[in-house]
C-alpha cells in the first residue's frame, strides 16, 4: 500500500485496542469483571427488573396454557399475530451475533474480537426468546415435539414440503450451532478463569467447564481449525435461517407475502436489527465496566456503518415492494400497497418508514456515528422500526386479503404485550447473568491483537 494512503487510513481509524496494554493487563481487566469486582447496586436493580419481567412472562405463559391462545388477539383471518411478529424479530436480532463471530472472522476483521463474545451470547438468548413463540403458538405446546420426525405410534411423519417444517430444522440447527460456537470460544477463557480464581468451588466449576484446557500447541492448532470450519459452516447457515423464515411468508399466496425479494431483504433486516441490539448492549456495558479501551470508537463506527448499509438494503426492499405493487398490475398487490398507506394500519406503516429509513440516515454524519448517546438512540429507533416491519408484514397482509368477506382487524391483548415484554425481560436477565459469570470479551482473542503477539519466522 502506498505510504500516503496508509497514513490517512491510520488517522481515520481509532485503534481496536487502546495502546499500553499487555497480555497480563488484558487478562486482568476482563477477568476482574467476573472474579473480583463486586456486583454493583445498579446490577442488582437492572437484574431485578429483568427478573420480574421474566416472572411476568412465566405468568402469561402459565395462563396461556390454562386458557389457550384465545387470550391473545389472534382471530381468523389474523392467525399469526404477535407470536410470529416477535419470533421473526428475535431471530433477526440473533443474526448479528453470528455475523460478527463467523462472517467477520472469515473476512479477517480483527476488530470483531472484542465484541464477538457478548454478541454470540446475545444470539443465544435472542434465539431462546424467539423459540418460545412458535412453540406456544401451536396451541397445544405440550405436543410441540410432533414437529420433529420421530417414530410415533400414529405412523405419520412431518410434511417436508412445507416451509414451516424447514423452519423447524433451520432454527434448531441455528440454535445448536450458535451454542456450540459460543461454548468452544469460551473454553480457553474458562481455563483462564480457572487459573485466576482463588475460590475453590469456582475453580472446580470453571475447571470442569474448561475441560482441562492447557493451551498446548497441538490443541490450539486443532482448535483453530475447528473454529474456522465452524465459522465457515455458520456463515451459510445464518444466511439460510432468515431466508427460510422469509419462505414461511413468501411461499404463501397472500398478497404482501408472495414475493421473491423477501429472502435478501429479510436477511439484511435481521442484521440491521441485530447490530442495533449489539450497540444498545455494548454502549452501556463499555461505559459501566470501563471497557472503552477494548470496545473503542472504531467498533461503534463500524457497527454504525453496517447498520447504514443494511438499512439501505431494507429501504430498497420496501421500495421494490411498493414498485411491484404498482408495476405487476395485480389488483391485490396494488391494494396491499394502498392499504398500507391509507388503511387502518397506516400509522404503524409511516412510523416504520420514519424509524427504519429516515432517522437512521443521520448515521451519515461522522460526529453522530462516534457519539455513543446518539448511536444508542438511533439503535433503539431501529429496533422499534424492525419490530413494526414484522407487524406490517404479518398483520397488515393477513387482515385484508382477497375477499372483503374475510377481512378483519387485529387488536393485541394485554397477554400479547405481557408475553412480548416478558421475553425482553428474560433476554436481559440472561445478559445480566452472563456479564457476571462469564468473560464478556474474549480474552484469548484480545491477546492476539496485541503487538507482542506477533511472531517472526
Amino acid at each position, binding site marked *: 500500500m502506498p505510504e500516503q494512503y496508509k497514513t490517512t487510513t491510520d488517522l481515520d481509524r481509532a485503534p481496536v485496542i487502546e495502546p499500553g496494554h499487555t497480555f497480563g493487563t488484558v*487478562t486482568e481487566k476482563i477477568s476482574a469483571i467476573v472474579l473480583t469486582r463486586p456486583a454493583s447496586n445498579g446490577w442488582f436493580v437492572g437484574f431485578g427488573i429483568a427478573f420480574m419481567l421474566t416472572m411476568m412472562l412465566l405468568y402469561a405463559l402459565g395462563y396461556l396454557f390454562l386458557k389457550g391462545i384465545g387470550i391473545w388477539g389472534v382471530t381468523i383471518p389474523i392467525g399469526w399475530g404477535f407470536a410470529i411478529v416477535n419470533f421473526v424479530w428475535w431471530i433477526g436480532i440473533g443474526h448479528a451475533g453470528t455475523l460478527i463471530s463467523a462472517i467477520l472472522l472469515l473476512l479477517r476483521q480483527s476488530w470483531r474480537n472484542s465484541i464477538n463474545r457478548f454478541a454470540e451470547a446475545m444470539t443465544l438468548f435472542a434465539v431462546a426468546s424467539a423459540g418460545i413463540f412458535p412453540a406456544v403458538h401451536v396451541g397445544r405446546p405440550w405436543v410441540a415435539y410432533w414437529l420433529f420426525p420421530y417414530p410415533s405410534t400414529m405412523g405419520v411423519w412431518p410434511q417436508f414440503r412445507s416451509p414451516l417444517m424447514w423452519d423447524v430444522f433451520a432454527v434448531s440447527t441455528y440454535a445448536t*450451532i450458535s451454542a456450540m460456537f459460543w461454548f468452544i470460544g469460551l473454553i*480457553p477463557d474458562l481455563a483462564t478463569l480457572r487459573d485466576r480464581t482463588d475460590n475453590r468451588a469456582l475453580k472446580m466449576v470453571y475447571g470442569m467447564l474448561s475441560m482441562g484446557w*492447557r493451551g498446548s*500447541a*497441538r490443541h490450539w*492448532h486443532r*482448535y483453530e481449525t475447528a473454529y474456522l470450519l465452524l465459522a465457515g459452516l455458520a456463515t451459510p447457515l445464518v444466511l439460510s435461517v432468515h431466508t427460510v423464515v422469509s419462505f414461511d411468508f413468501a411461499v404463501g399466496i397472500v398478497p404482501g407475502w408472495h414475493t421473491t425479494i423477501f429472502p435478501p431483504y429479510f436477511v439484511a433486516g435481521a442484521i440491521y436489527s441485530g447490530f442495533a441490539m449489539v450497540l444498545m448492549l455494548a454502549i452501556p456495558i463499555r461505559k459501566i465496566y470501563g471497557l472503552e479501551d477494548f470496545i473503542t470508537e472504531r467498533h461503534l463506527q463500524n457497527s454504525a456503518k453496517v447498520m447504514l448499509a443494511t438499512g439501505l438494503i431494507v429501504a430498497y426492499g420496501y421500495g421494490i415492494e411498493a414498485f411491484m405493487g404498482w408495476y405487476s398490475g395485480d389488483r391485490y398487490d396494488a391494494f396491499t400497497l394502498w392499504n398500507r398507506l391509507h388503511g387502518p394500519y397506516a400509522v404503524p406503516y409511516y412510523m416504520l418508514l420514519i424509524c427504519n429509513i429516515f432517522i437512521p440516515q443521520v448515521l451519515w454524519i461522522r460526529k453522530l456515528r462516534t457519539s455513543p448517546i446518539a448511536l444508542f438512540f438511533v439503535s433503539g429507533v431501529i429496533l422499534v422500526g424492525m419490530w413494526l416491519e414484522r407487524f406490517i408484514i404479518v398483520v397488515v397482509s393477513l387482515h385484508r386479503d382477497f375477499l372483503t368477506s374475510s377481512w378483519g382487524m387485529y387488536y393485541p391483548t394485554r397477554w400479547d404485550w405481557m408475553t412480548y415484554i416478558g421475553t425482553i425481560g428474560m433476554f436481559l436477565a440472561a445478559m445480566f447473568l452472563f456479564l457476571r459469570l462469564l468473560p464478556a470479551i474474549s480474552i484469548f482473542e484480545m*491477546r492476539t491483537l496485541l503487538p507482542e503477539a*506477533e511472531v517472526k519466522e
Partner: protein
Amino acid sequence: MKRDPVYGIMAEFDTPQALVDAAHATHQAGYQKIDAYSPFPVEGLAEEIGFHRDEVPLVVLIGGIVGGLTGYLMQYWMSAVAYPLNIGGKPPHSWPAFIVITFEMTILFAGISAVFGMLALNGLPMPYHPVFNVPRFVLASKDRFFLIVFSTDKKYDPAATRRFLEALSPRSISEVPS
C-alpha cells in the same frame, strides 16, 4: 511398565517469539516428544514442535456428508416410502422441497463433528494433567509461554536436557512430576 517419576522438564518464556525460537531449537536438537503451551494460538508454533497432521477437516467432511445423506434419505423414506401423502398433487419424492432440510442437516452434522471431533482428537475433557502440578503453570493461561520435553523422549536425560533448556535462556525451569 514402571512409571517414570518425572513427566518432563519445563521451561518458561516471556514472549511468544522466545517460545517459537526455543521450540525450533529444541526440535532441531533432535527432541521429538515435546510440547509448547501458550495463552493464545501462536502462529507456526505447532509446526515447530513437529505437529503436521490435523485430522479435524477430515472429520468435519465426513460429518457433513453423513449429515447431508441422513437429511435427504430421511425425507425420502418418510415422504415416499413410509407414509406417502398427496400434498397439493406434488409427487411423494419431490426433491426440490427436500433441499433446505438436507442443507441444514449437513451443517448440523458437520458442526457437531467439528466440535466433538476437535475435543476428542485433543483428548479433552481431561481435568487432570501432570503439567498442572507446576505452580507457575497457572500463568500459561495469562501471559507466559512454556516448553516441555517429555521424559519419554529418546534423547531425554535429566541433566543434559536441563542444561540444554537452560541454554535457551528461559525465565525459569521446573521439573514436572508425573
